[in-house]
C-alpha cells in the first residue's frame, strides 16, 4: 500500500481550513486526536499538582504550602485526574480513533453527536479549571464531595459539581455512540464473537457509562439543590442522610473504576497477541469476563463504606461481591500470561508497558483484596495504603495501559515512528520511579500514615522521602516520553502500514489512515488474532 498515493485524515482538506478543519471535524480520528491533546495537557497539569504535593510531603511540618492550599491541591488533582483523564481517557482517545477501524466501519454511528460530546467535555474541563481561580478559592472537599462538608464548605464547590455533571453527560453521549456503533456498524461477517477484544472492552465500558453515570448526575444535582435552595437530602441538620450520599456517590464511582480499567484491559489485550505473534489465549473468556466485570462491578459500591456505619449484613454482602469481582479480572491476567507463553516475543516499548501493566495491576488488585476483607479494611481505611492501592490500579493500570496504547498505535495515528531505544529507557525510568513512589506508601499506610494530610509524624519521614524522590524520577521519565513522542510526531521516520506485524484491521490500512478508513469495507471470515495459515481456525 505504501506506494499508492492517498490523502490521510491528517492532510485531508474539507470545507474548513486551518484550525477550524480540526475543531469542526466530525471525523472520529480527528476527534480522537483532539481528545488526546486536551487530555495530555490536563494530565501534565494534574501531575504537576501531584509533584507539588509530594514536595510538601518531603519533610514533616510545613515545607512549601499550608493546609488549605494542600486541601485545594489534592481536590483539584483528584477531580482533573478522575473526571477528565482516567474516566473518559482511553475510551475517548483510542475508542474514538480505533473502535470504528477495528470493527471495519468508516466512522461512529453519530459523528455529530461525537463532536458535541467533545465540546461538552471541553466545557466541563474548563469549568473544573475555572473552579480554581473564580470566587472563593479552590474547592477543598476532595474529589468525592462527601456531604455534609461539601454543602457547608464556602469554596467553589458548585463550579466543581457542575463541571463533573457536564463531564458525566459527555461521557454518557460517548457511551451511547459506541454501543450503537458496535451494534449497527460492524463489517459484514463480523459477528460479536469475531470482534477484536478492544471493542469488546469498549462495549462493556459503554454500558457502565450509560447505566451508572446518570446516578452521579442526579446526586450532584441534589447536592447543588441542597446548597442553593437548602432542599434537604443529605444534610443531617435538615433530617437528611449523609450515608445515603455515599451510597449514591459510590453507585456511580465504583463502576467508574471499571470504566477506567476495562478499556485499559482491552488495550493490552490487543498488544499481547501482536508482540508474541500468537492468537490471544481464551478469546471467549476474555470477552465474557469484560461483561462479567461490568455486571458484578455495578454491585460492589458498598466496599467504600465499611467504616461509615453501614449494616453488618450489607458489609458482608459487599465484601463477598468484591472478592467475586476479582475472579474475572484474574481470568484476564492468566489469559494474558498464557498468550505470552511460548510466543515469539518481541520486547518493544508497547509490550514493555503492557507487561508493566500486568505487574502493577496485580499489586493494585491484591492490595484491593486486603481492603475488601472487612477486618483489614478497618486498619488501612483512609491511610496512604489506600492512596497507593488506587494509584497502582489507576496509574499503574490505566495509565500504563494508556502509555502502552500510545506506543502501540502511535505509528498508525501519526504515520511516523518514535525512537525505540529512547522509549525503552523512558519506560525503565518511569517504571522504577513509579515503584519507588508508591511502594513506600503501602508500607507507611500500613503503619498508620493517614491520607490527605499535609503534615505527618517524623517516623514516616523515610517512606515519604523515598516516595518524593520516586515521584521526581517518574516525572523525569514522563517528560522524556513526552519529548520523544512530540519530536516523533513532527520529525519521526515515516512508519510503514504495519510496523508490528499485527493482524487486526487497523494494520491492513495505510498509516495514517485515509479519511474514511477503508476503500472497500472488508469482509470478515474468521476470528481475530489469526497469525499465519497453518493454525487451526476454530471459529
Amino acid at each position, binding site marked *: 500500500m505504501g506506494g499508492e498515493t492517498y490523502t490521510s485524515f491528517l492532510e485531508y482538506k474539507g470545507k474548513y481550513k486551518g484550525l477550524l478543519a480540526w475543531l469542526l471535524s466530525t471525523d472520529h480520528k480527528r476527534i480522537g486526536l483532539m481528545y488526546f491533546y486536551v487530555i495530555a495537557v490536563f494530565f501534565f497539569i494534574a501531575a504537576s499538582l501531584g509533584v507539588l504535593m509530594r514536595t510538601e510531603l518531603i519533610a514533616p511540618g510545613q515545607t512549601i504550602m499550608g493546609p488549605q492550599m494542600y486541601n485545594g491541591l489534592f481536590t483539584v488533582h483528584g477531580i482533573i485526574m478522575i473526571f477528565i483523564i482516567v474516566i473518559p481517557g482511553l475510551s475517548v482517545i483510542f475508542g474514538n480513533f480505533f473502535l470504528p477501524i477495528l470493527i471495519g466501519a468508516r466512522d461512529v454511528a453519530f459523528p455529530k453527536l461525537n463532536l458535541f460530546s467533545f465540546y461538552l467535555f471541553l466545557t466541563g474541563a474548563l469549568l473544573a479549571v475555572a473552579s480554581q481561580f473564580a470566587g472563593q478559592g479552590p474547592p477543598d472537599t476532595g474529589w468525592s464531595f462527601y456531604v455534609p462538608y461539601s454543602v457547608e464548605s464556602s469554596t467553589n464547590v458548585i463550579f466543581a459539581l457542575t463541571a463533573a455533571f457536564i463531564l458525566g453527560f459527555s461521557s454518557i453521549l460517548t457511551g*451511547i455512540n459506541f*454501543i450503537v456503533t458496535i451494534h449497527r456498524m460492524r463489517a459484514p461477517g463480523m459477528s*460479536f464473537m469475531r470482534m477484536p477484544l478492544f471493542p469488546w472492552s469498549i462495549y462493556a465500558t459503554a454500558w457502565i457509562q450509560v*447505566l*451508572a453515570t*446518570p*446516578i452521579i*448526575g442526579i446526586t450532584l444535582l*441534589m447536592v447543588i439543590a441542597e446548597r442553593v435552595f437548602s432542599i434537604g437530602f443529605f444534610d443531617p441538620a*435538615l433530617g437528611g442522610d449523609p450515608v445515603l450520599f455515599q451510597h449514591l456517590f459510590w453507585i456511580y464511582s465504583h463502576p467508574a473504576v471499571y470504566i477506567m480499567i476495562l478499556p485499559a484491559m482491552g488495550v493490552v489485550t490487543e498488544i499481547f497477541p501482536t508482540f508474541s505473534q500468537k492468537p490471544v489465549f481464551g478469546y471467549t473468556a476474555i470477552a465474557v469476563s469484560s461483561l462479567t466485570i461490568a455486571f458484578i462491578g455495578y454491585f460492589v459500591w458498598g466496599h467504600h463504606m465499611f467504616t461509615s456505619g453501614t449494616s453488618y449484613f450489607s458489609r458482608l454482602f459487599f465484601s463477598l461481591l468484591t472478592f467475586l469481582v476479582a475472579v474475572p479480572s484474574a481470568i484476564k491476567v492468566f489469559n494474558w500470561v498464557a498468550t505470552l507463553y511460548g510466543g515469539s516475543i518481541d520486547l518493544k516499548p508497547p509490550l514493555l508497558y503492557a507487561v508493566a501493566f500486568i505487574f502493577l495491576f496485580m499489586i493494585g488488585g491484591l492490595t484491593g483484596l486486603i481492603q475488601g476483607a472487612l477486618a483489614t479494611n478497618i486498619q488501612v481505611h483512609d491511610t496512604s495504603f489506600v492512596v497507593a492501592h488506587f494509584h497502582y490500579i489507576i496509574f499503574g493500570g490505566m495509565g500504563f495501559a494508556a502509555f502502552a496504547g500510545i506506543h502501540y498505535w502511535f505509528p498508525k495515528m501519526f504515520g511516523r515512528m518514535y525512537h525505540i531505544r529512547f522509549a525503552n529507557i523512558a519506560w525503565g525510568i518511569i517504571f522504577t520511579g513509579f515503584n519507588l513512589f508508591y511502594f513506600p506508601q503501602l508500607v507507611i499506610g500500613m503503619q498508620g500514615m493517614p491520607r490527605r494530610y499535609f503534615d505527618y509524624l517524623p517516623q514516616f519521614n523515610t517512606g515519604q522521602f523515598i516516595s518524593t524522590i520516586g515521584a521526581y524520577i517518574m516525572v523525569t521519565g514522563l517528560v522524556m516520553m513526552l519529548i520523544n513522542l512530540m519530536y516523533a510526531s513532527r520529525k519521526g521516520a515515516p512508519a510503514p502500514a504495519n510496523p508490528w506485524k499485527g493482524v487486526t484491521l487497523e494494520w491492513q490500512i495505510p498509516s495514517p489512515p485515509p479519511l474514511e478508513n477503508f476503500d472497500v469495507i472488508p469482509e470478515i471470515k474468521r476470528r481475530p488474532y489469526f497469525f499465519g495459515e497453518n493454525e487451526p481456525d476454530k471459529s
Partner: protein
Amino acid sequence: MTDHTVHTEHFDKEAGKLGMWIFLFTEMFLFGGLFLVYAVMRAQYSEDFHTAAEELNTFIGTMNTVFLLTSSMTVAMSITAIQRNERRLALFLVSLTLLLAMLFMVDKYFEWSHEFEYGVYPGSDVLKNMPHGELLFFGLYFMMTGLHALHVFVGMILLTINFIRIRKGSINQENFLLLENSGLYWHLVDLIWIFLFPLLYLVS
C-alpha cells in the same frame, strides 16, 4: 438486531432508534437516583411522609395524569398518521399533544403557586419548622416534579420542532425518525409521571 449487520452508507434508522432507547435508559437512571432517595427516606419517616402527602392536591395530580396519558396516546397516533401519509391528521394530533402538555404545565403552575402562597417552597421558614420527614418529602416533591416539568418543557420544544417539520414536509411517510424518537421521549416523560403520581399524591 441480528448478529450480522451490513454497513450502509446512507442513513440508518435503526441506529437512531437504538440510540434514543439507550438515552432513555440514562433518563430512567437519572430519575432512578431520586426514587432511591425517596425509598430510603420513606422507610425512615413513613409517618411524616403520610402527613405531608395529604397536603398535596390529589385532584390536580389525577388531572395531570389524565393529561399526560392522553397526550401519550395522541403522539403515538401521530406516528400512525404519518406512516399512513395523513399529514393533516398528524399535525392535528401533534398540536393536541402540545395542548395537553400545556394544560399539564398550567396545572403545575397553579399547584406550585398555591403551595408557595402557603410558604411551602424550598428553603422557606414554614418548611424548616416542619418535622424533618415532611421537610424531606417536600424537598423531594419539588426536586422530582421540578425535574419532571423540565422534561415536559423539553418535550414541548421537541414537539414544536416536529410540528414545523411536518408542515414543511421534511418529516413525511418516508422519513419520520425524529417524530418517532420525540414520541419515545414523550412516553418516557409519561412513564416517570406514572411512578411519581402514586408515590407523591397517593401515599396518604
